């Protein structure tokens, strides 16, 4: 299981680390692998900086140009740290209504793509109507990306919210941002959603999802049998599959050391802005 600790993610979605309270005895043993290169931790915050691991599409110069372009765009707007399960507000310039902007609030249910192709999907229920909007992360028409609530969920893709009760994906459009104190780790929301009865869009019972509370009550014996037949418990031991889906540590450290400087500067600028905001926020409320 050591390789899981070293696992370097790229296209694989962010997987939530297990909360440390469950196994406090193992903490001293864990210290070894965790005290590796600190810049490798960027892979959780900026997963799109890692290239697609498919060797057919790799080229070092193209990846370098792509990263440079991404950093140039990041100089223009502040793309904050967010995860699947965070609640975002995205403001875009609207070409269909000249001179206006369009703001959408929702929970991030998916994050995918490498480089400039990076995308994320927001979901919300507005006027009892479920809505999903997909955005390009580096789209120049995006005016502002604001994180309203920074948190993770138990799963790495939240497509099951489409089949869940609507209150689990309802967020008010005029939600206020919740500011986490500096230095706190990103909280994991242990919320378990309740599904609507069948028919469903996908066979959620086969996907080993942790964030669903009441799936067992809708399953028949046939469903349970099929679930057992289609389980692939050996896949987590498939080293080759892991290797093909990830970027090796050495290449990652090269990539991160190349962009680390500028990312640090951007992070500093963001922190400064956050401090200013904490001072000014009460004033606006008073006024």
């Amino acid at each position, binding site marked *: 299981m050591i390789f899981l600790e070293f696992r370097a993610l790229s296209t694989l979605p962010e997987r939530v680390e297990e909360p440390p309270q469950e196994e406090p005895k193992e903490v001293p043993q864990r210290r070894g692998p965790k005290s590796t290169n600190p810049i490798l931790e960027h892979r959780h915050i900026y997963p799109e900086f890692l290239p697609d691991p498919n060797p057919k599409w790799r080229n070092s*110069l193209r990846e370098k140009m792509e990263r440079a372009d991404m950093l140039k765009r990041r100089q223009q707007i502040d793309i904050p740290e967010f995860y699947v399960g965070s609640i975002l507000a995205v403001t875009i310039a609207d070409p269909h209504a*000249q001179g206006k902007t369009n703001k959408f609030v929702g929970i991030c249910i998916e994050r995918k793509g490498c480089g400039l192709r990076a995308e994320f999907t927001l979901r919300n229920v507005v006027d009892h109507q479920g809505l999903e909007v997909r955005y390009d992360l580096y789209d120049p028409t995006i005016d502002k990306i604001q994180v309203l609530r920074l948190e993770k969920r138990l799963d790495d893709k939240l497509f099951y919210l489409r089949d869940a009760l609507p209150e689990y994906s309802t967020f008010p459009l005029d939600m206020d941002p919740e500011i986490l104190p500096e230095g706190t780790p990103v909280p994991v929301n242990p919320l378990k959603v309740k599904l609507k009865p069948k028919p469903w869009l996908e066979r959620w019972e086969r996907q080993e999802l942790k964030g669903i509370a009441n799936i067992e009550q809708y399953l028949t014996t046939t469903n349970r049998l099929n679930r057992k037949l289609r389980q692939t418990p050996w896949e987590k031991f498939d080293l080759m599959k892991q290797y093909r889906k990830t970027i090796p540590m050495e290449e990652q450290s090269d990539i991160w050391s190349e962009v680390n400087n500028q990312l640090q500067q951007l992070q500093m600028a963001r922190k400064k802005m956050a401090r200013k905001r904490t001072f000014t926020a009460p004033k606006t409320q008073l006024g």
Partner: protein
Amino acid sequence: MSTNNLKLLCTKFNNLKINYVITRTASNWKPPKYRPPYWYMPKERVLTEDNLTQDNRMFIKEIIQDKLQAQAAMESPLENISQTETMQWTPGKKRVGLIARKIGNYPMWDKDGKKVLTTLLQVIDNHVIKYIPPENFKPMIHKVKQPQEHRRLGCMLVGAENIDPSTVTKDYCGLFNSVGMLPKRHLCRFMVSPEAALPTGTPLYATHFRVGDHIDVRAKTIDRGFQGVMKRWGFKGMPASHGVTKTHRRPGNIGAGGEKARVWPGTKMPGNMGNRWRITRGVKILRINTKHNIIWTLGVAIPGETGAMCYLFDTVLPLKKHKTSPPFPTQPPLDNLPLEYYDDSIHEFESPTISFEEI
């Protein structure tokens, strides 16, 4: 006397080698016909164990390094020729092209906020190796004497990507030695007007083309191997059920009976798919990087996979030809070029966020 003869015979026998290797190929597949041009020198060399010491290897490496530095320091012959001496561009004239490597695709956005996919082409170490004027250029060697033909265009050889001279044959190196260069991995022939001829050893850069120009790209398509008719020609196949057996992906009928009871030439059949030379015409250039010599082109229709070589030249499409004079015969190396050129329609990543103003 006889012992001498015997010894000679023995040495001769010792020198004899049996170099007969059976190569097995599919009987019905023939490689595409290829007739090398007369300036072509065989490049592949049989690699043997040279038994060199470590010092000698280092020495060879040093020499290659020295040559590389000398090549880099060599100033472009264009600098000596003043601008007034060079010819002026007129619409009929044909310029030289470039050899580039396809290094991938990524999206860019235009000024209306629309996403466009681009292909990146890198121009690596392009140098003019040889120029053959039209009167000397006779590509076809005929057995029967031909009536004298009048040629308009000369032949220009361009090489790309330096390689280690010890990996190629001596003949191939000789092509480049006469110009004072290390051998190149890729060599290509471009037909140019005599006015656009360049002196040998001229380096070519990505700025040979301008942003907003249209180019033609010639490259080999992806080799897909032996494929059936559904993949190769887009046939529909046959139904999966309704009593159909054993013919779900087969072509079906390949000809009629009667007078035409044979297979007509050109019938679409299974076979080797891809690995053919194809030209994509009228590709627009959106952005040029002068430091790494990268050209961004619109669309993903450049043939070949990532890392494939392709040949770029001015388009022949009548509506997309040059309207104004391009760098003629080519762009001389300048120090004060801007790092990047962008097309007018493309949103630069450095520029601020797009907002749609009220009209």
